[in-house]
């Protein structure tokens, strides 16, 4: 799961606090950085912001950094490659459950994989927490 998705998840868990309120709590003048951190597909480069967000949500900084190393774009790369090579994909969900199958398609919010019974599983991107080589195989260009 990317840091963006994780931040949205944490905010939803907290009851859907408005980004403006979060920005104010972090001592930021505008909510732009908070909004961007929740939306961007690539890693959040502002380490100070990540640290502040970790403090705000009361989570360990390592947890946010772990998610930051697995941005949405890298999941796209993984699925796109699997579509080309027909290799089996394994996605680990937030619950710890692992789902495997052949990639059928991917889009903005979900990934379609066909399991061994031929059943199409539509997995929400934000539910995917990890995948093989998630943080090591991809270079952010």
């Amino acid at each position: 799961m990317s840091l963006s998705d994780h931040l949205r998840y944490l905010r939803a868990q907290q009851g859907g606090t408005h980004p403006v309120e979060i920005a104010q709590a972090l001592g930021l003048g505008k909510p732009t950085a908070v909004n961007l951190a929740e939306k961007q597909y690539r890693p959040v480069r502002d380490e100070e912001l990540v640290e502040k967000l970790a403090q705000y949500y009361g989570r360990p900084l390592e947890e946010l950094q772990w998610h930051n190393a697995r941005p949405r774009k890298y999941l796209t790369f993984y699925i796109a490659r699997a579509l080309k090579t027909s290799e089996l994909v394994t996605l680990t969900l937030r619950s710890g459950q692992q789902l495997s199958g052949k990639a059928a398609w991917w889009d903005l919010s979900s990934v379609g994989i066909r399991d061994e019974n031929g059943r199409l599983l539509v997995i929400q991107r934000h539910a995917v927490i990890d995948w093989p080589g998630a943080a090591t195989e991809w270079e952010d260009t």
Partner: protein
Amino acid sequence: MSSNLWELRKKRGMTVKQLAAKSGVPAKSIYAYEAGEPIKIADLGKLAKVLYVDKTEIKIQSDPVPKTKPEPPKPPAKPAPPAKPEAASSSTSPAREKKLPPPRPAAEGQLHHLRGLLEKLGMEETAVAAEIGKPVNELTFLEARTWLKTLDGRIQAEKPQRPPNTRRWRATQPEIVDEFEANYLQARQEAKDVVTFTLLNETTFSGIIIGFSPYNITIQQADGTETTIQKLALAYYATSPELAKEAA
């Protein structure tokens, strides 16, 4: 004794703009005052201060500025050009022949691009040289430009055309397509398939889809209950295994 505004200004060696800038009186007003318009009392003090004179030394109504500029002398009449002898109009005259600069040679980038295009077309450089009429290296800038266009046109013509009513193959970026999931949900809704939804907390809901948006999906469960599932709380969903087996 009072003097005209323009006289005092010129005495100080100032232009109207400079006087305007220093006094704060708009240049437009100064031009008007110098042309004979009565000076406003408020402006009179400002102008007097800048011109280092007493208010009483400036004429409230200036006399018009005398035209001192002499009329420019008329340019001397151009001598009539000598009658051209008929032979002079001929382009064969060596005296009037223009020396053209040598043509600019093709740029290195042009040649590189040209060779790239030839490679794409699978053509040998020697074969093309015969078509062009000279070696590729000896092309001029303009010739290279023309041949680049020609070869590019050939490549475009050879490209297989995408069948009509088909979508362009999308690249990895940008991730703006959300049609796959929408199409899948639409198909399940139309077929009235029973779909099982698993939430992030592993709770499951089964039912037929009765509506969906990019943010939520509404289902009708077997007992008739309508439930709207927020996609943010959703982990994955699929049709029941029985349906998959039937489909297989």
